[in-house]
């Protein structure tokens, strides 16, 4: 199937700094893509280029097969939900949602009907005549969504849409976003720095750092088998160990020798171990350095006797009797150790 | 294309704005007696004439005096009242604050007239001091508004910290509040200076023998167009630009963190 959006070798320079470095990405129809990364990673810049608010220094953007690189936002089949929602304060909610249709020249009755329909989909059909300042943050977010969706874009772009909401509301909106996306069928491209949000919403996660794509794929794969050190520590936590590939292809580290495919003899590598795969059991004697209680589990950092400089992270059950300074024995699940590409 | 039209329009407006100033400066260098075309020059004779004209130089000095003193007083009163209203819950606060800002809505002519009648009735003579009083009246609301708008909760917390560390009220005021607010104080003072320096009507109504520069210029011009006034105008312009540069450097370099 042909890509809905094809981003080809996009580079973006601002003066001397390189915001995006030869980024290429394909987005499929009906998908929910999340651009995930810390601030400065280039994710918002990429979204701006997709939306037409920025012209890339180099590269092409193709939407539905057509080269849209230099096309103005009005002419592209994209619509953007802005971080501050940018609802027009002097218009009613209905006026806001119908705005795009009005610009297209749709007759009044038709566009009011469509606006009402879309407001129903986002659960705000009662708010048609209200003004934006009368709504709560979460409601305004949904109006912004409705306003962008009603013009039936090929791709919907969302710039950190849930950043301004508190945790509980954010979780609720995440569920709603996913439901709306499935219902409407439009491809969503969503920018965030919150990795939990990315995993909850995306069927395609793109991890970005310093203007490059570090890793991309289904959330299960990107989390389960991160490709790089950045990915392993940005998506969830990991203990990173130095390793050396022996003649037999096995990787020797300070905490043991692991059977990992893909390394060349003699190569210096890094391996990642997720805390949930480190449990109490025979294997590594260690001293507990830090315990953080998190309700359903305890996050424990321990210094192994055989390698005291390493901070081995373990996710232990909440009832585990551990305290700072106590002795502990940890077991690493060898099947879950990941060989990183960098 | 749209860009070209924008640039042309902007240049046209700039041209319109600078037209009288350009003419003013040009004819301050006029060689002959009258500041009308054609231009004969350049000549510095009118600048010389201005510096020799005691009334004009006296007027300049008087203007500076009145401006500095009235602005300082307006800033001080504005600061004290802003602090009082911002840090204490006083009854009818909104009403009283509205009262303080009321003079902003009244024409200078009317303020001047009121003072003229009032002083007349009290038997007080016209003087520079009277004009100064009028200038404080017009500038106090401005200083109050500017400083009050800067006295938010953030500043209040810093003052609370100072009090917590043992400072007495007057120490908090002089060692913490005033220095913290210095951009607002400076802005109020500078703006007051600008308005007082060039103010005509109140000075005209309330002064007699000793008067400010705008009034002296007016008196000079009643006898007919005189290139001396162009020279004075150009000098005033030059001084003002200098002050503006000073303001720019002071206000925008030392941005408090």
């Amino acid at each position, binding site marked *: 199937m042909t890509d809905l959006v094809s981003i080809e070798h996009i580079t973006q320079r601002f003066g001397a700094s390189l915001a995006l470095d030869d980024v290429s990405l394909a987005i499929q129809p009906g998908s929910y893509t999340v651009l995930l990364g810390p601030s400065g990673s280039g994710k918002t810049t990429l979204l701006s280029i997709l939306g037409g608010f920025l012209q890339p220094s180099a590269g092409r953007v193709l939407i539905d097969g057509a080269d849209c690189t230099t096309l103005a936002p009005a002419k592209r089949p994209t619509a953007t939900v802005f971080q501050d929602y940018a609802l027009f304060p002097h218009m009613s909610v209905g006026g806001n949602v119908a705005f*795009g249709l009005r610009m297209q020249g749709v007759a009044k009755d038709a566009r009011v009907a469509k606006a009402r329909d879309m407001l129903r989909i986002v659960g705000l059909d009662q708010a048609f005549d209200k003004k934006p300042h009368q709504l709560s943050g979460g409601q305004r977010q949904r109006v912004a969504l409705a306003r962008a969706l009603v013009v039936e874009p090929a791709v919907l772009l969302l710039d950190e849409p849930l950043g301004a909401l508190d945790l509980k509301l954010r979780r609720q909106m995440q569920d709603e976003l996913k439901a709306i996306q499935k219902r409407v069928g439009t491809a969503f491209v969503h920018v965030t720095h919150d990795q939990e949000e990315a995993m909850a919403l995306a069927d395609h996660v793109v991890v970005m750092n310093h203007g490059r794509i570090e890793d991309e794929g289904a959330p299960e794969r990107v989390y389960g088998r991160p490709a790089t050190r950045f990915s392993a520590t940005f998506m969830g936590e990991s203990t990173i160990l130095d390793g050396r590939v022996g003649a037999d292809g096995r990787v020797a580290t300070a905490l043991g020798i692991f059977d990992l495919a893909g390394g060349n003899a003699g190569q210096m590598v890094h391996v990642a171990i997720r805390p949930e795969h480190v449990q109490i059991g025979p294997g590594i004697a260690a001293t507990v350095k830090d315990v953080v209680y998190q309700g359903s589990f305890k996050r424990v950092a321990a210094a192994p006797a055989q390698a005291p400089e390493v901070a081995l992270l373990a996710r232990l059950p909440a009832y585990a009797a551990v305290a700072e300074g106590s002795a502990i024995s940890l077991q690493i699940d060898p099947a879950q150790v990941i060989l990183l590409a960098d | 294309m749209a860009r070209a039209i924008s640039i042309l329009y902007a240049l046209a407006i700039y041209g319109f*704005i600078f037209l009288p100033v350009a003419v003013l400066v040009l004819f301050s260098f006029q060689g002959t007696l009258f500041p009308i075309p054609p231009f004969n020059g350049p000549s510095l004779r009118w600048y010389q004439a201005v510096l020799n004209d005691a009334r004009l130089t006296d007027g300049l000095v008087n203007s500076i005096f009145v401006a500095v003193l009235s602005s300082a007083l307006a800033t001080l009163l504005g600061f004290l*009242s802003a602090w009082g209203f911002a840090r204490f819950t006083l009854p009818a606060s909104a009403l009283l604050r509205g009262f303080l800002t009321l003079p902003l809505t009244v024409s200078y002519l009317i303020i001047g007239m009121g003072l003229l009648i009032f002083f007349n009735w009290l038997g007080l003579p016209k003087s520079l001091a009277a004009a100064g009083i009028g200038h404080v009246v017009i500038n106090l609301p401005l200083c109050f508004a500017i400083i009050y708008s800067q006295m938010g909760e953030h500043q209040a917390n810093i003052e609370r910290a100072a009090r917590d560390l043992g400072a007495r009220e007057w120490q908090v005021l002089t060692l913490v509040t005033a220095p913290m607010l210095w951009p607002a104080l400076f802005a109020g003072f500078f703006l007051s200076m600008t308005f007082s320096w060039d103010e005509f009507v109140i000075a005209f109504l309330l002064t007699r023998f000793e008067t400010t520069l705008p009034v002296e210029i007016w008196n000079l011009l009643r006898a007919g167009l005189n290139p001396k006034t162009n020279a004075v105008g150009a000098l005033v312009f030059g001084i003002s630009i200098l002050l503006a540069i000073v303001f720019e450097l002071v206000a925008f370099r030392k941005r408090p963190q």
Partner: protein
Amino acid sequence: MSGARQPIAGWASVSPALLWTLVFFALPFVAMAAASLFPKGGDGLSLANYTQFFANPSYWRALTNSLEVTLVVALISILLAYPFAWILAFVVPERWQRLALMLAVLPFWTSYVVRSYSWLLVLAEKGIVNDTLLSLGLLAEPLQLANSRTGTVIGFVHFFVMLLTLTIFANLKQLSPNYRKAAADLGAGPVQAFLHVILPLTLPGIMVGAFLTFVLAIGDYITPQILGGNNELLMPQLIMMQIGRRGDFASASALSIILMLVVSVAYLLCARWLKIERA
């Protein structure tokens, strides 16, 4: 807010300013109102000064002249200043904007009196404009620009274009750039974005600027006196005439109060837009 502390300190702090305003603003106003009720050469309390205003056509005409001139000035100034402020806010590159703005208001710092006389130089029969147009052959006879209402309007417009550029610029800059982006994103061309989004959002700011222009212009003495000529008088000139030529403070006071009433009426009409908002 620490009301728990001695409110005495608070009162002590605000009293100087309050007293000053009371003694040198409120009381003079009362004195003026009182003076207006005792006509010169009359006997005691009377509304003669006020009735005279309505009876005497030349007095009444001063008010209508003032209203016409200030409304025309406000309209022209807004029409000229808005596009200019727009260009400064959205077309000029960011790092040059403060400089461009400073340049636009630099003439504020020439003496108002001298600047008005310079306009005379430009607009007079033998002035620069006429000289240029005549020598270029575009005119057969010099235009009457100075010493007429045209001169007054031009003088005022010059001042208020600078002032309004400043206020409208601040207004435009304060709008979130996402409004324009959202409008563009939803298919609005530049004209549509302006009409449907930017203009309505900046309208309150424009109304404030218009009101400011009205208040400042209607009370200004210098510009009409220098550039307006002798054929028509505006209110401030009428008022000054009472003091200067006739020494009639009573009449001048009455006229001042009438002027203030007119401004108050204007304020009430515009009150909707003039609510001071706390950001």
